[in-house]
């Protein structure tokens, strides 16, 4: 079995790790680390059932995940304090949201940057307030800066000068240049307050965002982790009403196709229970599956052609053809200079 398949099997059925050889363990742990799923894996596996050397590595991963979670929640609190005077809605996204809301998807999950969603009209004062509280531009580059401000769904990333942590401030969940246009006002209107001044997306929107992030924006790097998020969310939220709401929200945001594909892929790889009609295979799913399973036992990504295809696709999804040509030209000539 390839390392990526070992990883999927271990996450899906933790008992499957019984009897792995030392070489298979090495491959599994390396792939899990490369896919940023080692904390999740450590949380799933019963450390008493594994060789001592593996148990030590898993214990390290668990401790790291606890610390990452603590740091991520603290960072969210820092942003809350900086933005509280504005009185605008601040919605946590992705890993920090899972951790803050106590969702299964947050168990053992690695959390990097802080991602928040704010109303588009508040963007200017949000940036000012963050800069006043110690966040600053990661690097000043006029083209990148202008590109972000004009064409992206987020501000150029800011980093805190003392804590060295990044924040991504979004005003919607896909770039305005992408073909689907999610309803940002609806995302904000249905956000669920956590009671501490911060909010998270509604359950259905959370799944829609995870699917959009994985399939409608980017080249599927880190896709196994994103798909694991989706699996955990679907299992936790499951219920007739939820599935109906999910179909409704996906349609409203123009993201029915990516949401359906994400559900099918989660069902296929992680065995996520899904209602009749959501399961099955759609056209092209096999290619996505192949892209998701590129990681080998040394932590490298194989299938270079498949990956290149998804890289090109990520740009295609994000921009109209003429704009893409201009963008790639600017990037290429700038690199050469």
């Amino acid at each position, binding site marked *: 079995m390839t390392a990526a398949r070992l990883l999927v099997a271990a996450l899906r059925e933790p008992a499957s790790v019984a009897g792995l050889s030392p070489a298979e363990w*090495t491959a599994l742990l390396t792939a899990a680390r490369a896919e940023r799923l080692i904390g999740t894996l450590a949380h799933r596996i019963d450390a008493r059932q594994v060789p001592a*050397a593996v148990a030590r*590595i898993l214990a390290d991963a668990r*401790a790291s995940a606890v610390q990452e979670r603590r740091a991520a929640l603290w960072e969210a609190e820092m942003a809350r304090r900086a933005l509280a005077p504005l009185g605008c809605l601040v919605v946590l996204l992705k890993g920090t949201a899972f951790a803050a809301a106590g969702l299964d998807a947050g168990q053992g999950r690695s959390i990097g940057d802080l991602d928040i969603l704010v109303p588009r009209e508040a963007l200017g004062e949000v940036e000012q307030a963050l800069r006043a509280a110690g966040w600053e531009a990661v690097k000043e580059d006029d083209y990148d800066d202008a590109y972000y401000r004009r064409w992206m769904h987020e501000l150029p990333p800011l980093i805190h000068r003392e804590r060295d942590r990044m924040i991504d401030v979004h005003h919607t969940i896909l770039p305005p240049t992408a073909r689907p246009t999610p309803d940002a006002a609806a995302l904000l209107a249905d956000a669920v307050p956590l009671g501490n001044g911060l909010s998270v997306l509604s359950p259905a929107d959370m799944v829609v965002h995870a699917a959009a992030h994985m399939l409608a924006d980017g080249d599927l790097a880190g896709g196994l982790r994103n798909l694991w998020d989706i699996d955990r969310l679907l299992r936790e939220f499951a219920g007739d009403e939820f599935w109906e709401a999910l179909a409704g929200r996906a349609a409203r945001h123009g993201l029915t196709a990516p949401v359906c594909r994400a559900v099918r892929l989660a069902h296929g790889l992680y065995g996520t229970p899904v209602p009749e009609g959501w399961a099955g295979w759609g056209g092209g799913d096999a290619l996505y599956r192949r892209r998701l399973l590129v990681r080998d036992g040394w*932590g490298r990504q194989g299938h270079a052609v498949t990956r290149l295809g998804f890289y090109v696709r990520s740009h295609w999804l994000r921009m109209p053809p003429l704009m893409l040509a201009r963008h790639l030209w600017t990037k290429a000539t700038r690199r050469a200079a």
Partner: protein
Amino acid sequence: MRHAHAVRVGAVGFRIGAAWRAPVAALARLYEGYPAPEVADLTVRLEPQRPWRRWVRPSVEIAGDYWLPDAAPLPLEQGLLAAEMGMNLQVALGWRRHLLLHASAVEKDGRVLLMSGASGSGKSTLATLLGMSGWRFLGDEFAFVALDDGRIHPFPRAASLKNGAIEAVRAAGGTVGPVLEGTPKGAIGYWRPPADALARMAEAAPPALLLFPRFGHAEAVEPMPPSEAFMRLTQASTNYVALGEAGFATLARLVGTVPALAIDYPDSATGLALVERLWSEA
């Protein structure tokens, strides 16, 4: 990977894979007699920058579980250095089981002397010379401080000696080899720790003295308050921030229980004598 070698150094199980035979063979020779890990904790990959660079002007890119975005590749002749840098990098960025200090460590009578300083401070040279004269060599690069009891765990990699240090160790009767000329850090020579250091690589001991040496200055000794030692060691630690509260508690205990001194010395012989004297007074 085409060529691979696994080795355990102290608490750390490494696996090093490469697209070429030479770096892996050199590494296996340098680490002959070290145990193999059951399951590797950390993986190093030495890869060509582009597929054709395996043959054409071969250059070695250092990759693995963890990496730095702007690391410069090395020519294939310096493949052993690439392997060593790769191992250091994985430990520096990935290790969480102990608090890591950029320091050398030697042990005598069951107590550990720690020496922390920037590159060029002489901490590697002093640890190597002490390791040749009755002390147990624990490591020249990283000190592993246990999070539960503060003891120092050995990490007896081959010491990497730069430029003048190579001659200093040879003059004292040590064997240095192989030596790589013309690396980004000048000449680098490796010194293999004695058999005793390898045989006892699982044996930890409590710290007793903390020195901040500075090579090339007139002899001087200056006591350092715990607060300053603490601040300097947060700078010298690669995982202090990532460990959070555990890192703070471990470092606070270290500087709270172990005396710290800043020492200047003009040459190795003076430095060695000074360290022995301060140790006997500690």
